[in-house]
Each structure stands twice: as C-alpha cells, then as structure tokens.
C-alpha cells in the first residue's frame, strides 16, 4: 500500500507535467521509473511474503509460489492503476480455541483491520502508468 501511495504521487505529478505541455517522449523516463519502482518493490515484498507465510518444506514449490506471488502482485498493481478497486473486511471471531490459535487469529484480524483503512476506494488522478509483467518470460531457445 505504501508503495502504491508513492506511485499515486508520481501519477499525479505526471499528470501535472503533461498539462504543462511536456512532450510525450520526454515523459517516458517518468513512466519507466514508476514501473521499475513498483516492479522492484513487488519483487522484494513477494519474497518476504512467501518466506513469512509458506510453512511447507517443498523448496521447488516455494520458488514457484514466489514467482506466482510476484506476478499476482503485478496483476493487482496494474489493475488498481487502471481503476479496479479492492477492499477487505473482517468480523473478529468469538472468544474460544487455544491461546496460541487465538493469538494467531487476533494478529490476523488486526492486520486486516489496519489494511482496511488503507484500502478505501481510490479516486485516481492522471493516466495509468503501470505495465508490469503478468507472465513469466520463457528463456529464449538457443539457435
């Protein structure tokens, strides 16, 4: 969310610069920077997410999921940039269960509730900037 908020600022400035009549070819640097910013941030976040939450021992699947999470986050970012909106809400569970379970659920609910506040429907300014890759590029075959 913090990363995307940074992008929103760039998007707003991009719009302002465009209004000032700066030629499109001069704007491509900003677009490239915005895409690289998001792509790098997402790549880092996807590794952190899989390392933190994937508890199985299958290393091969873990690598596949790291790629899938990165592509999924790219897809989400591209879509939000094009006017899609996501929201999430949760109702805290009733008391009960083991102490460890309750603590885990309490943390999950708190994380969702804090994210909810940051995920209010966004009124976007300016044109979409993102064209993040949504498919894994296959290595080129040697001639």
């Amino acid at each position, binding site marked *: *969310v*913090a*990363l995307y908020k940074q992008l929103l600022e760039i998007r707003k400035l991009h719009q302002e610069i465009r209004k000032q009549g700066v030629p499109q070819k001069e704007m491509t640097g900003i677009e490239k920077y915005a895409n690289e910013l998001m792509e790098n941030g*997402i790549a880092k*976040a*996807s590794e952190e*997410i*899989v390392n*933190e*939450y*994937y*508890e*199985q021992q299958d290393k091969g699947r873990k690598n596949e*999921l790291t790629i*899938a*999470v990165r592509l*999924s*986050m790219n*897809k*989400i970012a591209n*879509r939000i940039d*094009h*006017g*899609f*909106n*996501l*929201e*999430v*809400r*949760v*109702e*805290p*569970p*009733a008391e009960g269960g083991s102490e460890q379970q309750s603590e*885990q*659920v309490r*943390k*999950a*609910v708190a*994380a*969702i509730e*804090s*994210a909810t*506040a*940051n*995920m209010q*429907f966004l*009124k976007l300014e300016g044109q979409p900037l993102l064209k993040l890759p949504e498919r894994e590029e296959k290595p080129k075959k040697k001639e």
Partner: protein
Amino acid sequence: LVEIGGEPLFGKRLKEHVETVLANNQITPAVALQTLRETLEELEKFEAALNSAVSAFRELDIGDESLKPGECEIGVLVPRVAVRNQLLNFSEELKELGFILNTFSEVATGKPDTLELRTLSSSDLLVYLRASALTRLASPLRSNV
C-alpha cells in the same frame, strides 16, 4: 465522503478550517464565532441528512451485508470500461482474480480456497468473496508492504 460533500466537515479538513478561522480573526473573535457557528450548522444539517437516509433504509427494509464472527470478505470492483462491457472479458478477469487469490491461499494455508461467492453487484461489476482470514493476512495489501 468527498462525493457526498462531507469531506470539509470532518477530520483534517475541519481542523484546518477551524484553525484558519481562528488565525484570521484574532482581533475580531465575534466574527470567528459567527463563522464557526455556520460551520456547526452545516455539520448538523449533514448529520440530519445521514440520519434520515439511515432511517429510510431501515423503513424500506434495505439491509447491509454483515459478516458473522470470524468471517472475512474480499471485494473487487471491475470497471466496466476495463472489460469493454463484455461478458467474456469479465470472465477472463474473474479467472485472473481466482489465480491471484488462490496463489495467496496456497502460501498461507498450503491449499487453494473455494472462493465462495457472497454478493454480486452489476451496476458496477462488483464481486464479494468469502475468504479465510489467514489467506488475507498473507496478501500484498498489508499496510506495511
């Protein structure tokens, strides 16, 4: 709040307004008082309008979608223009959504989710899905990402 015209009456915008009124009328507090009374009147009118709307919804039996304890819901709004208002494009988007959410589900729980549908809205293409709280926890929209 912006769209229904209430933004200046709450939070940061209201604080800024009060501070500006007080700063601009330090020698004439009566003027500041008059301006702030007008703001209060606007706020009271806004509150009355909201209360009327809530009463009307209740009277017309228009309820809200409430969650049971422990339930989590993810809502996705797909702009009609993004799918060119075409069903097949929309279904492709739903497949993408399934891929995205099930990726996070597998990371968090080790298996895909059934992604049970809760509500669909068609004026805007809005899909609400029931989700496991822990799946959501592992998703990228955590506030610290």
